[in-house]
């Protein structure tokens, strides 16, 4: 494999590490905050007869943001469901092609999400629609997470494609021992 390609791959690997370290952490904080708010709402209502009017909405959007932001991370961790039963039995070069196609399709889908999101964001903006509760958040801002998340997810597929091209497996599966540490050492996670 050419040296250039390896540099590109290394770049992707450092990005994947960055994503795991920061993006996933931010999203996890969102999930934990959502959990805390939900508990607080339950406790507040039961013991103090009060309800926080921003609680339901903020919990919904926190989890929604956490989800879209981690589509790429989940890919790197081998979490997305797929089947390799057919592919596993293919002749290696064919398997490569299949993986490359799978990555390309992933990129097309992410591209489509972004392409579809932009006019909708413009519409939310021109409508000036705000969320239901007292939070008064503009929906177009909340909606931004869709193209952002799709972009990060698309990067994961681009990374996968690069890996196939440099002779690695495109995806790992979470039930492989090393999957969760994949981004720490890309090559070690390849299944023999």
């Amino acid at each position, binding site marked *: 494999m050419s040296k250039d390609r390896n540099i590109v791959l290394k770049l992707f690997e450092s990005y994947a590490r960055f994503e795991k370290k920061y993006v996933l952490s931010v999203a996890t904080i969102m*999930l934990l905050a959502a959990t805390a708010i939900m508990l607080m709402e339950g406790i507040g209502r039961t013991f103090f007869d009060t309800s926080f009017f921003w609680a339901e909405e903020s919990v919904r959007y926190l*989890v929604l943001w956490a989800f879209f932001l*981690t589509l790429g991370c989940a890919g790197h961790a081998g979490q997305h469901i797929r*089947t390799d039963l057919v592919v596993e039995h293919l002749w290696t070069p064919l398997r490569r092609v299949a993986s490359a196609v*799978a990555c390309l399709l992933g990129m097309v889908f992410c591209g489509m999400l972004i392409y*579809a999101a932009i006019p909708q964001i413009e519409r939310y903006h021109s409508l000036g629609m705000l969320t239901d509760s007292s939070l008064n958040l503009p929906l177009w801002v909340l909606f931004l997470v869709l193209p952002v998340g799709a972009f990060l997810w698309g990067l994961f597929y681009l990374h996968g494609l690069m890996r196939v091209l440099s002779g690695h497996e495109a995806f790992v599966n979470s039930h492989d*021992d090393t999957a969760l540490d994949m981004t720490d050492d890309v090559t070690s996670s390849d299944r023999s």
Partner: protein
Amino acid sequence: MTIVIALCLMLVLLAIGTHVAVVLGLVTAGLVLTVAGVPATVIAQTAFKSVNSYPMLAIPMFVLAGNLMMKGDLAKLMIDLIGSLVRSVRGGLAITVMLSSVFFAAVSGSSVGSAAAIGVATIDGLKKERYPTHFAAGIVAVGGTLGIMIPPSLSFILIGSIVGLPVDQLFVAGILPALLEATCLLCTVAYLSWKHQYGEIAAAPDFKGFGQRLPGAFAALMMPVLIIGSIYGGYLTPTEVSAFAAAYAAFLCVFVYRSVRAGDLWDAARNSLLQTTMIFAVVMGGSLVAFILARMGVSANLISLITSLDLAAWQFLLIVNVLLLVLGMFLDGVALVVLTAPLLFPLAKTVGVDPIHFAVIMVANSEIATITPPVGLNLFVMSGIAKTPVHEVARGVLPFYAIRLVALLIITFVPALSLALL
């Protein structure tokens, strides 16, 4: 015609190893663009709203609760407790594992979560007592499926939020069918162990050991009681209780059993989020499919077709079960529910099947889908934990299929089983 082509395309894309979420979303997006007068924005709006649902928020929190209990070795606690009584019969450890699966199902919302927790805690022990690896992995994979029939259950939450049914009632509806399934599985484990003379037998029931272990396990045993109690006592809503479950699990692991360090909580939360993202991604793809089926009028046409066929309820249910079993081979439990619920529930209504009963039938099918190759998450997970190929796990699961099918038929044709407690 377009739909048939799309369906074939989906199968091909799945076969070449494309992620399920991408296959569902991409094929649908392709269809969206072919329908005149449907702008691309619907793809974005549908993807966004698919996960913007309050009841579904329970999913990450129940996943987190399950992961914490797994990290905190709560499964081991249960196995030791139950084992002290049950180990004296042939196949005692295997039966203990199955009983522990029942208990763990009552605190965990997912099938995979249950299997992983029990598997990590028992596989080595089972192997040490000379249970064949395929049998050991098989019983854990099968036992794990109870996690979605016994409340709390992610599948019931999904169905509730997709179809609009009260989750608390769905939870209650699952209890008797789950007991039926658990009984069937226990009998099969006992029979197989006896037939093949698996495992070792302890001399006598260790009542003393049981008494000693009980106080320690008490806080963990209280978990299902607290979860169900706080809903029916009017303290928490069915969604809020998931946050409580996660908090209680964290409290147990860090302060009561001290089996998890505070830092591990963070890791558990990160992994839980990733697992949630996996589920939500499929939900997102499934909503896109549901949107296009509704928008192209496929759903409405199917309903009028079924209505015109004038099927009896039992005929309809039989067809549905066959369909779900076949789809269940290629899809996992979550994808199965997400894809078929929006289509099948209106149909069930037209032939007069109670939606809550129908939800239970659907969950029973998802349980089976989770252990049916080629795509079955529990098989994958147990293959990883038992360090054995997927087809070996499937071999271990094989003897259980027949009994699962019998249980499925009973659940399908005895509505009272699902509805009696409501």
